[in-house]
């Protein structure tokens, strides 16, 4: 034992020095120190104290932005997870060709810039866009439908962006389902409807919670998509923070909002981690 420890100690040290330490250093320099800076602004700008946090808590304008952000993110997460569940199902259990098509369709969006995607949706959804002009030409509608420059447009764009991210944890959880358990259920007399709602859905619930959480948290920071597809009318918290910081130079308020948002995300991570084993979602 003694020789083993002596022999492994230098190796452990080198693993530390070469592999782990740089990561910690990177996290410190690129995240922790800037975050400390942001936090210090929130309690020092324009003067020392918690006045900015008091404003976050009392300003009805900020409240309505926060509420809208939570609403849009929750709706985005619901729709994305629903779509992703269907995609993941066919990805895992579909015939080979369908699997390939879905894998391709899920991966391709990662290569297309978020800006291009947002403008693509704008082209489709705007009053003179393809959808409205087609519907008008066919005679189904006389006035264009308000599909964009509102919350609907923002949610459409965000669901499109987020669905692939929700697919991965769901695929991972579905792959871990033992199909014999479903066979057992059918052997015991359960039909497809009951097999799904009483067996498959509960077994994949950790993936659903995980995917919902990933989409929701990711969506909280959305900035470009709401700015383009909301047409300036659907301001979400990230855009508002940006405005405070870079246009009105109200650094203290922006920093206080950012810190509040970060605290909220950490709290949610802690709550979700009590129900879901994150490592299972990454297998």
């Amino acid at each position, binding site marked *: 034992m003694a020789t083993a420890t002596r022999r492994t100690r230098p190796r452990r040290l080198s693993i530390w020095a070469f592999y782990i330490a740089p990561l910690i250093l990177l996290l410190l320099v690129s995240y922790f120190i800037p975050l400390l800076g942001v936090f210090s602004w929130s309690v020092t700008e324009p003067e020392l104290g918690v006045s900015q946090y008091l404003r976050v808590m009392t300003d009805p304008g900020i409240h309505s932005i926060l509420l809208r952000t939570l609403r849009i993110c929750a709706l985005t997460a619901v729709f994305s997870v629903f779509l992703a569940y269907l995609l993941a199902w066919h990805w895992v259990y579909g015939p080979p060709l369908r699997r390939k098509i879905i894998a391709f369709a899920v991966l391709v969006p990662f290569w297309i810039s978020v800006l291009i995607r947002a403008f693509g949706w704008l082209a489709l959804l705007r009053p003179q866009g393809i959808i409205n002009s087609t519907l008008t030409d066919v005679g189904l509608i006389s006035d264009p439908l308000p599909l964009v420059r509102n919350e609907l447009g923002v949610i459409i764009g965000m669901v499109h962006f987020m669905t692939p991210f929700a697919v991965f944890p769901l695929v991972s959880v579905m792959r871990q389902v033992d199909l014999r358990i479903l066979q*057992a259920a*059918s*052997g*015991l007399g*359960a039909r497809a409807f009951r097999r799904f709602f009483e067996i498959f859905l509960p077994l994949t619930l950790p993936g659903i919670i995980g995917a919902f959480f990933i989409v929701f948290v990711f969506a909280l920071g959305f900035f470009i998509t709401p700015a383009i597809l909301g047409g300036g009318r659907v301001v979400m918290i990230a855009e508002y923070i940006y405005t405070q910081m870079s246009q009105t130079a109200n650094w203290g308020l922006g920093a206080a909002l950012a810190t509040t948002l970060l605290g909220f995300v950490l709290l949610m991570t802690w709550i979700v981690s009590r129900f879901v084993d994150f490592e299972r979602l990454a297998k």
Partner: protein
Amino acid sequence: MTAKDSDLVTPPAGPEGTVQIEVKDITKRFGEFTALERVNLQIRRGEFLTLLGPSGSGKSTFLNILAGFDFATEGQLVMGGKDLTFTPPEDRNFGMVFQGYALFPHLTVEQNIAFPLRVRKIRADEQKRRVAEVVRRVGLEDHARKYPRQLSGGQQQRVALARALIFSPALLLLDEPFSALDKNLREQLQFEVKRIHREFGSTFVFVTHDQSEALSMSDRVAIFDGGRVQQIGTPEQVYDAPGTEFVAKFLGQLNLFPVTGQQHGPAGVSGLFEGNLLRAAGGKPGFSKIGIRPEHATLYDAEPPQAQNRVAVALRGTAYHGASVLVDLVTTGDQRADVVLQMNAAEWAARFAQTTAPLWIGWPPEKSLILA
């Protein structure tokens, strides 16, 4: 309360031993590959039938067709005059115990066992009563509220059996339930499955690749190979009178002697091996080999009595197995056939370990196996 006066056990409709399921010419093809070819057999009410065969023999395909997880390409399954061939599993009313048990991990023991009753929309108080009774009968009272992952392998098997038997299924299918377990636990669970079979009185169809498991547990054994049923019969029948060389070798070790000059007489058959006359009771047209199980032959250090079949052998080695010894021998004539013999370890040590005398093996003709 015994099984007989409990309402959990619906005695199978019709007297025990009569045909419950008729399997007619079941064939299964996967593209070019024929997994099952014209399987014909009858499953009798209340019996413990084992489907035995090596992997790839078609036994699991056949079980899947019985259960309804897969459908036959040709042929028919008939139960009580009703065609079952394309009935989906949920409508067959068969219980099933899977390899690894396939318990519902998100449900407690009680909820697992109650699942088939819930599916059948049994009243809640009735469900509760029946679950409590089954839980007691399989000895899981202290674990009813636990989840499957909190149970030992043996306890999980009891949950799987209870869940599969609580709705009084017409048939219980067991798909290699022991194959993932260690030897001691396996033996213990074999006894338990037998006990539950006796107590519940249902028909059990059990799949395994383990011949000792098949011989020790079954009322009848069906031996599968190459997608066909090679032989079906009681354990004694298939072990002592195997129909083919494959069956004989799959069920246990066997010494085989190719013979010439075959004779058929009223007392049995005979043939010559290395100049020795080997006799066997019974008859079989076109036989070419006479065999003997290692435990039925005796080792001699002098020529055996006339009444025995006799072959001169030389010693090659031994393998010690505690109570018994496996003796590795070879015939001394021109055929140089391998012979394995099983004998008492103490007798080996006392009589043969040091001997330099010429050795013989001998066995009574009625113990001979006649093979094509």
